[in-house]
């Protein structure tokens, strides 16, 4: 009896999603895997082996664990002339606000019976889409809210750069400001195109429309992917934390666990964007429901995340002016075209 009540609270979506499955604990493991995969991919393309000797059987996977232990035991140095509170709060806010969007993205639907999630059918019933959603927060505007929450992070990066009071951090803060203006416009306009096409800002309605967004509006998918690479500072838009020119940009003065948090922040943000991409453009959980559906969505998101870290091994880094010119001259018209495509194709999608 008490076991079932504990299970009820354990699997309660508002707890389970942010803390366990696509949330904190899963993300910690996924983060280690992603960084390991990033290094392995880059090594393969560049004819090297990558991390190997830390654990030969696992292909060097424990190298990341070793790195994490090293960071955990290293000293956190706070510069003398910074605002101490904001300096420590910066990376924490970045990591925290990168996690927040995950809680508004529905990752699966709940069937009425026969699933481990079925007890929540009534609690998480969305009257707007007449579905029960496996999502921590129910809202009919989940797409708009998720995009809005992801765009907060760039402001916090600028805050971190400012509070660090280092000239590298200042330059990278300005670069982040330039970039955030352009990628937010791209992502928002591509999302508007999708919303017009599917007549909804609700992710669940877009997923259950039956046709994945990448087929319905490939232009918006490409624009969103480029915006995602820019927003989470992956290559070739690794301009804010360009480590060969600006040490590590806004995070120059950070050390120890705070540095881990700054690094984790951009990967978590990338994962949140990948979840949105998997739901909106790759069909989300469509054939499945319940917990397998959530697994399917997260596997798709992981594939998108791996693709975006794979870009490191293909591209170099653009200059800031090249990135801005590319985004406003080529990608922005494509985003507008995706809106028109959405308007044209929209009437056929029910």
């Amino acid at each position: 009896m008490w076991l079932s009540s504990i299970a009820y609270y354990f699997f309660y979506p508002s707890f389970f999603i942010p803390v366990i499955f696509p949330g904190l604990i899963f993300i910690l493991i996924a983060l280690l895997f992603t960084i390991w995969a990033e290094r392995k991919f880059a090594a393969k393309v560049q004819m090297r082996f990558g991390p190997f000797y830390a654990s030969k059987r696992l292909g060097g996977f424990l190298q990341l664990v070793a790195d994490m232990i090293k960071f955990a035991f290293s000293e956190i140095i706070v510069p003398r002339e910074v605002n101490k509170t904001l300096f420590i709060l910066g990376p924490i806010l970045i990591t925290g606000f990168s996690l927040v969007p995950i809680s508004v993205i529905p990752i699966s639907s709940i069937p009425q019976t026969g699933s481990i999630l079925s007890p929540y059918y009534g609690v998480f019933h969305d009257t707007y889409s007449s579905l029960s959603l496996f999502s921590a927060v129910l809202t009919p505007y989940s797409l708009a809210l998720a995009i809005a929450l992801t765009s907060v992070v760039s402001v916090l990066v600028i805050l971190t750069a400012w509070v660090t009071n280092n000239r590298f951090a200042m330059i990278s803060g300005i670069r982040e400001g330039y970039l955030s203006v352009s990628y937010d416009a791209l992502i928002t306009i591509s999302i508007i195109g999708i919303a017009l096409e599917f007549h909804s800002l609700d992710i669940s309605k877009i997923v259950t429309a039956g046709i994945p967004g990448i087929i319905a509006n490939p232009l918006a998918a490409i624009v969103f992917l480029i915006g995602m690479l820019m927003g989470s500072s992956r290559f070739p838009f690794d301009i804010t934390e360009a480590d060969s020119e600006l040490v590590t940009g806004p995070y120059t003065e950070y050390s120890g666990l705070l540095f881990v948090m700054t690094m984790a922040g951009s990967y978590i943000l990338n994962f949140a964007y990948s979840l949105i991409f998997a739901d909106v453009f790759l069909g989300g959980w469509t054939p499945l429901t319940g917990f397998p559906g959530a697994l399917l969505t997260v596997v798709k998101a992981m594939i998108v995340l791996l693709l975006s870290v794979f870009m490191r091994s293909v591209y170099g880094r653009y200059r800031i002016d090249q990135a801005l010119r590319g985004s406003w001259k080529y990608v922005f018209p494509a985003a507008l075209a995706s809106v028109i495509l959405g308007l044209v194709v929209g009437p056929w999608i029910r």
Partner: protein
Amino acid sequence: MDKVKEYPKGENPFKLFADHLAAVGTGLKYLVKPTRITLKYPEEAMTLPTGYRGMIRLYKDVCIGCTLCAMVCPADAMKMATEEGKKLPMINYGRCVFCGFCVDICPVDALKETGVHDAAFSNRRELVFDPDKFDKDYDELPSGEILIRKVKTRIDEKKGVIHEPDQ
């Protein structure tokens, strides 16, 4: 230098996009079919060519003590030591430049170049080899459970540098 090839700017954006796709495709091709040119050195070692100028060894019985090797040594690494009335060379690997002059000049071939180049020492005194130590062959593998695979390097037209097991 007066003729630099200029790439026209403002090209067809569709061609630019196709180029980007081609770049990612090439990357994926390398990801699926990786060709590694890195040698896993402690486990794999390259077979060295004959005549490789590695560490030098002495044949004590052959040596006639003519001091030519010590005389020709450009780095002053070779010195003569007197042992029971016989002059024998000793070498300081801290000074040796592996030029091989001593091997070339020896009139009785008492010195020989071995294929060993990867010796490690923990202090400078160990670098000086007295005639007894100098007399031993350095070719033997380091004692231990590590199995060293000898590989040969071949250049393939399609794959680039590949390492093949030797023998």
